[in-house]
């Protein structure tokens, strides 16, 4: 089994306060790793380290080693290339103020693709992969903001796919969506498993149980445990995990 991402002794401090403490975890190629835990446990911070969006936060200090395909994401990979390899889907649907087509084509255009035939192919392929194509294929030139929340979120997934990442990280992607849209997003994730490694941060433990292969439990900046999802939800090793999953705190 190949490790897509290897994290060793990762700590993050904001102005001296620890947001993440000595996290070590391996993420396997093409798995879906679910990350659960109460608010302010450092789950989002963890994601922000993986694509180095944390660099944009002025007072954050990052320590530790993070390897993507055995390359250090700080010293061995260029920043812009890393962000193409590790794509992010946010909690709120965040379409760019452009047409549906331009949203998806934004990434490829950034990286040099100009040919309109090539762009159309990419847009179609990515919209199909997130199960959005049928709903929007006749109105690709209309503003993305006219779509419903669930559609916008799937658009954001398409947009991320268009830059051809290898890893996709999701930060509570379904928190604003209705159950039907949520189901569509989860279907897309299962479909994408064949080609991408995915990490899903979610406040909804049941979602993690539905979708992820393994699940990690973060609590107040610490990685409490990580295991096969089935085992995690039936017989977790740590009592804190059990307490969280059974709802004793949250």
């Amino acid at each position, binding site marked *: 089994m190949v490790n897509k991402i290897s994290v060793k002794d990762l700590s993050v401090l904001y102005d001296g306060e620890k947001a993440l403490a000595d996290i070590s975890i391996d993420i396997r190629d093409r798995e879906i790793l679910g990350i659960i835990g109460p608010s302010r446990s450092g789950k989002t911070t963890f994601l922000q380290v993986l*694509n180095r*969006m944390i660099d*944009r936060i*002025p007072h954050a200090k990052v320590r530790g080693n993070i390897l993507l395909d055995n390359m250090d994401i700080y010293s061995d990979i260029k920043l*812009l*290339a*890393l*962000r*193409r390899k590790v*794509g*992010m889907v*946010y909690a*709120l649907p*965040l379409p*760019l*103020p*452009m047409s549906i087509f331009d949203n998806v084509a*934004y*990434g490829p255009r*950034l*990286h040099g693709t100009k040919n309109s035939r090539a762009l159309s192919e990419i847009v179609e392929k990515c919209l199909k992969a997130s199960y959005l194509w049928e709903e929007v294929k006749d109105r690709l030139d209309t*503003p*993305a*903001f006219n779509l419903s929340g669930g559609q916008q979120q799937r658009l*954001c997934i398409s*947009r*991320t796919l268009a*830059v051809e990442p290898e890893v996709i990280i999701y930060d509570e992607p379904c928190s604003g969506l209705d159950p039907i849209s949520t189901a569509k997003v989860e279907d897309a994730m299962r479909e994408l498993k064949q080609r991408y490694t995915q990490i899903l941060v979610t406040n909804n433990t049941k979602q993690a149980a539905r979708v992820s292969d393994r699940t990690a439990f973060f609590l107040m900046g610490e990685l409490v445990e990580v295991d096969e999802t089935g085992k995690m939800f039936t017989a977790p090793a740590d009592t804190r995990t059990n307490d969280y999953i059974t709802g004793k705190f949250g």
Partner: protein
Amino acid sequence: MGNPRTMQKVIFFLLGAATVAVIVPVALIFMLILVHGLQAITPEFIFSAPRAGMTSGGIFPAIVGTLYLVLGTAVFSLPLGILAAIYLTEYAQENWLTRLIDIAIINLAGVPSIVYGLFGVGLFVMLLNFGTSILSGSLTLSIMTLPVIITASKEALNSVPKSFREVSYSLGASRWQTVRNVVLPNAIPGIMTGTILGLSRAAGETAPILFTVAAFYLPFLPRSVYDQVMALPYHIYVLSTQVPNVPVKIQYGTVLVLILIVFIMNISAALIRAKFRKRKMW
């Protein structure tokens, strides 16, 4: 005093009266200018030069001079101001230096226009030896307009939601790519509105051009940036205080032309703002 409701009615009436006392003169002033000035507006007035010691003829050189000065101001202050605003909002770290710049800009905006004129004379006319010229006048007006342009542009740039930038960066865009593709297109209308308003103020200013470019009377149009020009605001000053026996309608006519230019610019800015609000895609 009687019951509170009556008192309220009285006071509110007085408040309204005070407000009307401010607005009515504005309307009266416009009517006055229109009524007296319209008579003077003829093709001859617009397109010919003053004659007979400015007691007849037209104001063409002053109109041209004002347009040149606005152009000159735009050339110097727009690129500098807009790029500086981009620097301050997209590139600079938030620290003591940027806070200092902000304070500096706010204070510059409050400096009396005659002080700019003084600075312009000392630096451009004398020290750099540009003499009284379109160059000196434009540079002086540009420095005066710079804070307005920077402030308006910063506001326009900051009104673009942070999330757009976040998304762009997470897709692997560089800083300039993000600014160029996501931030600027959505800030341009606001920037345009602000800059047009800034330039319309420059068009109407007298004090900064008094000793840096304005000519009392020039029989010919300027041939280079080192020439003086006549300008509408200064011409109004001359006609109303320096030359005796100027017919009233010529004075009002000149005022009307200046007001028209300033208001055309203001209305364009307002139209751009309204049109953009409709077309906004978020």
